Structures are given as C-alpha cells and as structure tokens.
C-alpha cells in the first residue's frame, strides 16, 4: 500500500474512536430503567397496532435500482473526464455516444413513470 494512505488510516482510526467513545459514554453514564410502557414504539400516545414490517411502496426499490445503474454509469465517465484534455475530439464523440445511451435510459425510465411520485 502506498505511503499516501497511512495518514488516512490514522484519521479513520481517530474518527472511529471519537464516535465509539461518545457511544460508550452514552451507555455508561446515563441511568437505565426500562419498563413495559417505555419499550413500546412511540406513536404519539396512541397504542401501536399491526406489524411494523408491513408492505411499503415499490417506488423505493425502483429508486434504489436506478441509483445503482446511474451511479455506475457516472463512475465510467470519471476516467474520461480526467484525461479529457489529452484525449481530444474522438474520445469526446465516443463519450457523447455513451451519454446518448444513458439519456435514452433516463428517457425510458421517465416515460415508464418510474420517477412519478404523485398519483
């Protein structure tokens, strides 16, 4: 591993330690007096009914799938963007074709209504 990564490990360790010490303080210093009522889910005073793990809108899954697709496509653009000035016209045209495919995908998703939330 190159030397430029060692200091990064230091800051990761320190940040992890600070967060962990805050967690430990929270657990150690406060009182802990559980009761049956306290352990119930808080729903503004009315008793909780039904299971928590019920169905929720499929929209959230669709957004997650779209995120993976588009995020990976964006990562493909990065190396090209870094080398853009030295690659020249041909690479630009190639990237425009790639982006056209990406835009076609976005247009398809848009047309299919996957990005609609009000109904």
């Amino acid at each position, binding site marked *: 591993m190159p030397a430029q990564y060692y200091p990064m490990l230091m800051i990761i360790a320190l940040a992890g330690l600070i967060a962990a010490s805050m967690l430990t303080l929270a657990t150690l210093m406060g009182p802990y007096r559980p009761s049956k009522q306290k352990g119930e*889910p808080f729903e503004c005073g009315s008793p909780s009914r039904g299971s*928590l793990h019920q169905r929720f809108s499929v929209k959230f899954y669709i957004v997650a799938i*779209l*995120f993976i697709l588009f995020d990976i496509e*964006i990562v493909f653009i*990065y190396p090209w*963007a870094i080398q853009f*000035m030295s690659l020249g016209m041909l690479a*630009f045209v190639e990237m425009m074709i790639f982006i056209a495919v990406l835009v076609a995908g976005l247009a398809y998703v848009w047309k299919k209504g996957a990005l609609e939330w009000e109904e």
Partner: protein
Amino acid sequence: MTLAEVIIRLVMVALAIGLLMSIAPLLTWGERKWSALAQDRVGPNRAAIELAGKSITLNGLLYPLADGLKMIFKEDFMPTRGEKFLHFVSPWLAVFPALAVVAVIPLGARVNLFGHEIPMQVADLDAGILYLFAFASLSVYGSTLAGWASNNKYGLLGSLRTSSMLISYEVAMGLTLVGLMMTVGSLRLSDIVEYQQGTMLGFLPRWGIFMQPFGALLFFVSAFAETKRAPFDLPEAESELVAGYFIEYSGMKFGMFYLGEFVEVVTGACLFAVLFFGGWQLPWASSEAYYNPLVVGIGGFISTAYLVFFVITLLGLPLRDPRIQFAIAAGGFLGGAGLALLSGAEGLLGPKGGVLGLILSNGPELAKLLMSLMVFTMKILILCWFHILLRWTYPRFRYDQVMKLGWKMLLPAALVNLVVTGIVLLIIR
C-alpha cells in the same frame, strides 16, 4: 515514514478533527440564534457559569457545552422489540464517516518549515474526490439502519425516505463534478486548489464557481440535500414523522445524529470552498502572492478583522458601538502588520543568527501557513452561515418535489453541463 513525518501527520489529524469538532458545536448554537433572529425572538441566552458571584452567559455560547453534558447523563433508551445491535451501532455509522471525510481536504498551503515539508492536509490522495464520495455515501447507512432497527413506523418511514433521497442526490452530485474534473484534469484536491490561482478572462478570479457556475449551483443544491437539513429535511420532518429515523433515540445517541448533521454541514462547506471557491487561494492572486509582504499585509488585515468581527458577533456585542468598531480595525491592523512583518523582515534586516535568525528565515513560510489557514477558515465560516440562512429561508419540500428535483432537473441539467463544458473546452483548447 520518518518519525518527524509521523508527528506532522498526527498534528494534521488533530488539527483537521479539531476544526470540525469546534465549528460543528458552534453551528448548533448559531443555528438556534439564527432561528431566533428569523422568528423575532431573543434565542438561547440562559446557560451560565457562576464565577465569583457573577453569572457569565457569553451570549448563550455555553449551550453546546450544557447540551453535551445533559445528553451524556440522560437515559440511554433501547426499544424492547428492535434490532438491538443495529440500533446500537447506527449513531456510530452516522458520526464516523462525517468526521473521516475531512482527511483529504487541504486546509492550507503546502509549506516548507524548519527543513520539513508540511502539507496542510491529512492525506493527499490522488483519488481524493472518490474518497470523499465513498465516505459521504457511507453515512446513508447510519440513518437508514437507525430507522429500520428501532421498531417504529415513523422511524421506518423516515429511513425509507432517507435512503431513497440520499442515493438520488448522490447520482446528481457525482455528475455535477464531472465538468470541474474535465477542466482541471485531476481528482486530487490539492491539484484542484492549485489550479484555481490567478485570474481568468482578465478580471475574474480563476475559481471553480466562475469556471463552472452552473456546475457549482447544481453541486451546492445536491450537497445541501445530502446534509438532510431543511428544505430537504424530509427524513425527519417533524410535522409528518414526529422525528423520523431517530425517533427511538435518546440522550447522547440522539446527540450523535444531531452532531453528525452539523459536521456534514462543515465538511460540505469545506468541500464547496475547496472545489469552487479556490480553497486557501486568495482571489485574483497566484499562490506565489503569499510570499509578497504587501499582499500578506492586506490579506492579513482583512482576514484578522473578519475573525475579530466573527468573535464579536458570537459574543453578541453591539456593532454600532465605536469602541467595538475600533477593536475590529485595531485587530485587523495588528494581524496585518504582524503577518507582513513576519513575511518581510528578513528581506529588510538581512540574515541573522541564533533563534531570531531561524524564525526570520522561516518567516515567509510561516506567514503563508497562517494566512492560508485564516483565508480557508473565513471561507468555511461564510459558507456555513449561508447554509443556516437558507435553512431558515425556505419551507420544506414535498417528497414528490424532492424526487422530481433530483431526477428530473438536477440529473439532466448536470448532463447538459457536462456536454456544454466539453464543447467549450474543445473550442478554446
């Protein structure tokens, strides 16, 4: 690495984390004071320390301290039917990545002091922006798992909203920076800052915001959404979801989510300053200008006067008072004169021996270090203030509006920005 290098790096780690952990609690206070201003109230001003029969309130500045103490001694609540382990670790997952992001941000100019090269940056990675994105997206786990693990319907709704909102804006955020990467040609943040020196078109500072005005706007909006604060506070919308994903958290664990949010504001401001406001660079000047005593004097005057002004507003002292105005001017003058003297004394006096000579010969580098740190801090503070100002200016979006903004406006706009940047760069090349 040699021992000296290890020590320098450790000091840098402490400095970077210290910067975050000092500005973030200040912001919690600043936000409450600003909300008071927006709603025509006095705001927090009661927390006090009794000293020699007098109670010292410091304009409410003791509130972050009082809040911290209170939170530590509060009951640490655990829902009986929740996922115990995930409920325990998710505050950690919210704070840790927010703190670790600061590793690649250059806080000041790279200088050569007493024979050691000191980069004012914890780790100068060649994939700096990728590191930032990686750690910024880790914080999604904290809030998503928190809501999921706490066995509460509001919490679950909050965490669903968080996860899909944050990942939507991550797509837009990743794409808005492509224009800047094409212009600069590097992912290394110190290269990006170096690139932003001098002027462009003869009269504008060569800053990211002038090279990529549209990209800067898009990036600002998506980075704002990543902090989950109003107008993007759907995950915790108190009028709809009570408290959203952290509804079943109490005491310091709630405090960690709260702190993590403010740390994200500070790192967002750092990032925006580095990418679009030239980092530690002075406007219009090249980075060599830090060796010019005159420039350092003027810049030192402005930035010291600003920092004195900042402290005075923190303490709530009346700015119309002529004595206060004198204090700002005097502070600025002292800072400017001191830095200019440090920078130019060896040129005036000639080389000297002993300790004085050692200080004088390192003077220009020392002045550059202090000056660049102050310039960067000034930029962060202004951006943080702007963040709070926006938060108290705009009402909350509806959820469909947020998703529409992310997918139907920011994403296509970022693609257009990319194409236009490419065409312009090909023409002017």
